[in-house]
């Protein structure tokens, strides 16, 4: 799902870099102050697992492919801020080293998946946890995949309206909301099921270490 370079207009990624940069600075300061060094190895394992699983693509009808995000897993186990920073590190590495996701689109990928995905996953988890813990874990994983899909579909679909050549042709991503909303969201409604199962399994393996 990572947005590549050349899809997003500068008037979007410029301010996004500003906002995300500020959030990264706040998060790093908070991490330096509050993160327990004993938790770092488990965070490293969870982050590495999310990264490795992101490389596994699932073919979808219509010829496209989709992959799990792992956002819910990292967020539920380690909290929103730790997940935001850890996943931002993954997206940065993917952009710089593997050309997977753009450098200009990095703040948008980090905001949509790392921050909003984590927030929504943890929010749903806390809401449903009193009812049934396993269901709460599953729904957190599913939500942490679907919410970023909605956000990115909206951002992508806005590009033709934001930047156009003199003759009206889009300068960046050419598809509007009528195309991006179903094309992005529907596959992630399905792959979110895998993310939900992933959170349940990760909880069993890595345990209740960092409370959210």
């Amino acid at each position, binding site marked *: 799902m990572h947005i*590549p370079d050349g899809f997003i207009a500068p008037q979007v990624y410029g301010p996004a870099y500003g906002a995300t940069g500020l959030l990264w600075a706040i998060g790093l300061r908070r991490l330096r102050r509050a993160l327990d060094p004993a938790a770092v190895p488990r965070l490293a394992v969870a982050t590495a697992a999310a990264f490795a699983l992101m*490389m596994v693509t699932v*073919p979808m009808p219509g010829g496209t492919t989709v992959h799990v995000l792992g956002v819910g897993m990292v967020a539920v186990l380690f909290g929103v801020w730790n997940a935001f920073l850890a996943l931002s590190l993954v997206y940065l*590495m993917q952009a710089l*080293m593997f050309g997977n996701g753009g450098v200009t689109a990095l703040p948008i990928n980090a905001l949509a998946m790392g921050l909003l995905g984590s927030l929504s996953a943890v929010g749903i988890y806390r809401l449903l946890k009193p009812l049934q813990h396993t269901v709460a874990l599953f729904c957190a994983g599913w939500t942490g995949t679907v919410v970023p899909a909605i956000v990115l579909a909206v951002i992508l679909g806005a590009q033709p309206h934001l930047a156009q050549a003199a003759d009206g042709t889009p300068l960046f991503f050419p598809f509007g909301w009528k195309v991006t909303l179903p*094309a*992005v969201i529907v596959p992630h409604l399905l792959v979110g099921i895998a993310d939900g199962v992933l959170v349940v399994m990760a909880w069993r393996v890595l345990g209740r270490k960092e409370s959210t």
Partner: protein
Amino acid sequence: MTCFKPHPRVSISLTLLFLMTLANAPAHAHGIHVDTSTAPAVTVSFSYEDGSPVAFETCEVLAPGDPSPFQNGNTDRLGRVTFRPDQAGTWKVRVWSADGHGNTAEVVVTDDLVSATTKRDHLAPRQRIITGVAVLFGVFGIVTLVLRRRSP
């Protein structure tokens, strides 16, 4: 026996119409001419992580230094874009899919307009995973050291 004799105006109109059909250019201006030739071309292939082709997706070819498209259309069934460059330099071949996947390949075309290479080589998926996991563990190792050195 009566003979059909057209009105003089009808006769003149039919005569003029007949003469117009003998004229060349105006009646043929809307035709499309076809010419076929074979020549070396540059083909850029796009595939997803699992190797399946990026088939029938929107694509665009940009000449060096020109922001307007040199060629546009769709990739073929095998995920390929083929074009015949008219100048040497770094060309861009861009592919979009509606779900946000895409890539921009930078293709360096040599002076003979035949040889071309893409600017970035990709690691195989397994190598990416191993490299990425190693980098992540390294970074988190440094984070652990930094956290342990903070004042209590």
